[in-house]
């Protein structure tokens, strides 16, 4: 292997350009073999894309969780370029840099493309290539035994990134386990719960009408870099600002890209977003700027109660909490209200991932109800989330659902069932005292943790970060564990706990990882089964549309999977067939295209058109404004009656009696899909849940009305204590993108960002190395109140104005020790899992990772998440990522 030092390499590259690398000067594959038809991605001129013969095929991106309609250019059987699909009404044809990452992942020479079986000890990194037949026989045999022995719930299927839209739950249902686990609590449950509580199950994500808005108040959201659905917002926000003069106000703890492009950016103390929102509500009511008619019609609580509730939350008070001048808060509140209804709030993890984050989002969301912008043009809109089945708001649309026969769901674990009787005594006691609405949804401590009933009241969001502690505590016995596209061993808080549990063969007798590449999670598996990338597979797609019109898209394979990689649907089908016992009846298909054609049978137009366009929508359909005012169609009003008090309209639906709408001005309209058909501003579920799990009823999370209260461990924060916040970079997607060479070339390490004032206080200078010691949360969560720190993190300091002086900020993507050369920034230490590599060659990966430490670069950053505490928010379970109290010491 030719080796150049970093400076030589850069000089060569800069001076001669790409041509210097042609002709195999620096070529070198880790595996021998034919090398593919693209000799080296550096060999630019010889392999330029010929758009005269390349074929453009639409599909859906999977570079992150936003899922944009894209078009791939395929030449000589390879995807060479990705563009936006102009037919996608959600993206309006836009893409971002992460779309290119899917190409890099597909052709990564260190991608796993053959099944691997562990040959050394678990975690030792020794593997041999296996056949699919061997994998299916051995894994299927062990899973069959679990099922035959009548303990199917001991199969845990835990995913990090599953967008099969019901396919994997079909498989776990057919197997008979409720333990299909996810990472919702890691991501977004704290922001989904306020929305579902207020607006109903269907609206767990909002779709602000940014094409028509004039004023946006953003509480810690960062759509320009991260944010599920961010790309749907970027173009609309920038068009609104630049072309129409709309104003974007952002409250943030650090200068994110979104904060930086905002018309107003206020640096705030962490977890003070709710305080600002409460003060804005105070001002709006004080100035009489609320929409009283809207409130009186739609809120489930009277305005005087809210007046009383916000009475003490003055802007002056909020200034003390947040650091934002009182005059600015008051002015922003007035500007916001005067822009109504073409104004909206926006928020995401910045406001929600705190101990007080659920309440913060409730307070923020209340502002939209106060000014009456809900559902209005330019306002806080709620677009039909997806087109599957009959859901609220989607009447008159084709039903898109997977083909039958679908398996039945597992039965709840009620007192008396075998599963219930083996639960720990205290859990049994708690669950037995639950109201019926929860008992009928209880499926054990992993799927429905009894201490967090609001994590599964609406649907099973689960509390992923507690899965490993719970397994260790014996709350759920594990017979087999399937990690699907999961990076818990790297990316979960206290990731070391995940690794310890996965290493323990008593606790986890069989661990199968299904993923695209080798990872910290796969490293602890007994089997690695190679999945297809987004460019090689089928998936159904639909999500809420910021263009406010329901749509669907199809992910389709542009190329065959590399090596012997297989789409997860085929892997699960074949496992089902091996397991047998009737399970295979639900996977009776040979060809995935046939399966998805049937799935989309009701979509107007023919299948070939859908494949060619990539997207279906009905451009004639009215926009999703004011869905709550739509009249309920007559066929839903079977034997209907109107409650004289509440005006709620109920009707027969099959054998059931269900609420279908609300009577308003003599008409029966849809209303909201909540128990009152109104907007739940006052939510009795919070104190109810608190009472059942022993959370004090005066805790902020237990209160019925939106409120602000401090994060307990932030109260009287000592002068030498700070709050550690984590964040995402625009070119990365959690821990999954570190192997994308072009993304990691741009961002590959993770300094400690700090305000220069803080550095002066601590006697630090730019580039000094510091150790952050992270402490546990104060109360009512996992291991709260323990004195022993969770862990430490050592990295260099980078000074940045506009980081809040009490905050240090570190990105969490970096510091991989498994995966390939690019993710590890190390070309000298061989990548593990080599037996699973294919025949791809890429000299970038083998010779040009110039930031490698051994080549004089900075290296690939350091791993942070072992030092971050497992910290679920009470009742809901969302990880409070941004509450971490730290001490800072110069190394």
């Amino acid at each position: 292997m030719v080796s150049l030092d970093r400076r030589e390499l850069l000089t060569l590259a800069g001076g001669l350009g790409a041509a210097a690398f042609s002709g195999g000067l620096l070529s070198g594959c880790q595996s021998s073999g034919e090398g593919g038809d693209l000799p080296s991605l550096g060999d630019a001129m010889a392999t330029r894309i010929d758009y005269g013969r390349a074929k453009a095929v639409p599909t859906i991106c999977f570079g992150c969780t936003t899922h944009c309609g894209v078009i791939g250019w395929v030449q000589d059987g390879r995807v060479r370029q990705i563009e936006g699909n102009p037919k996608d009404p959600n993206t309006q044809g836009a893409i971002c840099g992460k779309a290119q990452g899917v190409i890099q992942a597909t052709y990564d020479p260190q991608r796993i493309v053959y099944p691997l079986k562990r040959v050394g000890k678990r975690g030792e990194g020794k593997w041999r290539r296996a056949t699919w037949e061997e994998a299916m026989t051995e894994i299927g045999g062990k899973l069959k035994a679990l099922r035959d022995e009548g303990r199917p719930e001991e199969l845990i299927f835990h995913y990090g990134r599953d967008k099969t839209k019901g396919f994997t739950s079909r498989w776990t249902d057919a197997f008979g386990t409720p333990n299909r686990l996810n990472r919702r609590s890691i991501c977004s449950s704290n922001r989904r719960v306020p929305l579902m509580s207020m607006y109903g199950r269907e609206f767990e994500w909002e779709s602000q009408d940014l094409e028509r808005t004039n004023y946006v108040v953003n509480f810690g959201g960062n759509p320009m870099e991260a944010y599920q659905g961010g790309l749907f917002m970027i173009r609309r926000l920038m068009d609104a600002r630049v072309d129409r003069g709309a104003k974007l106000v952002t409250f943030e703890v650090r200068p994110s890209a979104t904060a930086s492009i905002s018309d107003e950016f206020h640096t705030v103390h962490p977890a003070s977003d709710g305080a600002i929102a409460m003060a804005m509500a105070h001002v709006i009511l004080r100035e009489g700027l609320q929409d009283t008619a809207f409130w009186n019609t739609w809120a489930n609580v009277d305005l005087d109660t809210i007046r009383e509730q916000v009475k003490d939350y003055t802007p002056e008070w909020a200034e003390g909490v947040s650091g934002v001048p009182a005059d600015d808060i008051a002015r922003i509140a007035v500007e916001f209200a005067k822009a109504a209804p073409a104004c909206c709030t926006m928020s995401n993890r910045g406001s929600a991932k705190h101990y007080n984050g659920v309440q913060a989002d409730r307070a923020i969301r209340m502002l939209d109800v106060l000014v009456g912008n809900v559902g209005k043009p330019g306002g806080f809109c709620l677009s039909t989330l997806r087109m599957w089945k009959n859901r609220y708001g989607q009447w008159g649309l084709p039903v898109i659902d997977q083909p039958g026969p679908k398996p039945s769901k597992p039965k709840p674990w009620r007192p008396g069932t075998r599963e219930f009787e083996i639960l720990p005594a205290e859990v049994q006691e708690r669950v037995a005292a639950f109201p019926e609405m929860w008992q009928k949804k209880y499926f054990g401590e992993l799927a429905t943790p009894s201490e967090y009933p609001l994590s599964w009241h609406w649907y099973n969001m689960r509390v992923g970060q507690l899965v490993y502690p719970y397994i260790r505590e014996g709350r759920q016995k594990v017979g087999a564990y399937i990690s699907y596209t999961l990076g818990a061993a790297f990316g979960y808080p206290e990731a070391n706990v995940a690794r310890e549990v996965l290493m323990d063969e008593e606790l986890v007798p069989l661990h199968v990882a299904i993923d695209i590449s080798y990872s910290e999670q796969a490293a602890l598996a007994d089997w690695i089964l190679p999945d297809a990338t987004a460019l090689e597979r089928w998936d159904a797609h639909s999500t809420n549309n910021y263009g406010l019109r329901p749509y669907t898209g199809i992910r389709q394979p542009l190329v065959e999977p590399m090596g012997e990689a297989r789409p997860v649907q085929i892997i699960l089908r074949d496992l089902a067939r091996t397991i047998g016992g009737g399970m295979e009846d639900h996977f009776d298909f040979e060809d995935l295209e046939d399966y998805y054609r049937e799935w989309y049978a009701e979509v107007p137009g023919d299948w070939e058109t859908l494949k060619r366009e990539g997207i279906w929508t009905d451009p004639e359909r009215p926009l999703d404004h004011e869905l709550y005012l739509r009249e309920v169609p007559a066929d839903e009003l079977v034997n209907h009656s109107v409650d004289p008090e509440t005006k709620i309209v109920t009707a027969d639906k099959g054998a059931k009696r269900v609420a279908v709408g609300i009577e308003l001005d003599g008409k029966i309209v849809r209303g909201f899909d909540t128990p009152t058909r109104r907007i739940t501003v006052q939510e009795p579920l919070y104190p109810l849940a608190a009472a059942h799990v022993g959370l004090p009823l005066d805790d902020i999370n237990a209160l019925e009305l939106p409120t602000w209260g401090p994060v307990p461990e932030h109260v009287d924060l000592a002068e030498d204590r700070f709050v550690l916040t984590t964040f995402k970079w625009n070119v990365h997607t959690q821990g999954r993108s570190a192997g994308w060479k072009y993304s990691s070339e741009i961002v590959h390490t993770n300094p400690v960002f700090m305000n220069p004032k803080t550095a002066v206080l601590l006697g630090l200078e730019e580039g000094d190395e510091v150790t952050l010691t992270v402490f546990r949360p104060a109360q009512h969560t996992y291991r709260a109140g323990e004195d022993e720190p969770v862990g430490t993190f050592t990295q260099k300091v980078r000074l940045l104005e506009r980081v809040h002086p009490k905050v240090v900020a570190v990105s969490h993507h970096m510091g991989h020790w498994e995966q390939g050369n690019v993710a590890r920034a190390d070309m000298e230490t061989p990548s593990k899992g080599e037996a699973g590599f294919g025949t791809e060659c890429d000299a970038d990966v083998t010779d040009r990772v110039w930031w490698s430490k051994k080549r004089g670069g900075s290296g690939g950053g350091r791993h942070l998440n072992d030092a971050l505490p497992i910290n679920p928010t009470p009742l809901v379970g969302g990880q409070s990522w941004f509450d971490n109290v730290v001490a800072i010491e110069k190394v």
Partner: protein
Amino acid sequence: MSKMFVDVRRCIGCHACSVACKTEHSVPLGTFRTRVRWLPEPGDGRMTFLPVFAETCDLGANRAEHGLEPACVMSCPTKALAIVDDAPPESRPLERKGDTRDGVVYRGHARWQEDAMNAGVSLSPEDPDPIYEQW
């Protein structure tokens, strides 16, 4: 003659252009043909973004042959980049341009950003963005 027009007010620093260009031309690690620079505003600290183009950039000649926009323009989610025949009003080239190519006009950029380019901010990955630390 065609020019690259950069509307700096619209750029969000997302690097879609930096990366799409690398995909398009199989640009090896260690060099960029186009790259967005993140530059903290002096005295304020908020980030500003300036896409810059290397001498090697040919404004997407292989795509233009087929009536397609350059990969950077195609990939820009905020329409900050465009190929134009005439420089739009209020646009001008960078007066001090560091190592960047001619034939690019900018609108909405600040003098201090040009100063930064002249002070050595370049396209080279060896020259890190202040925010993307690369020691």
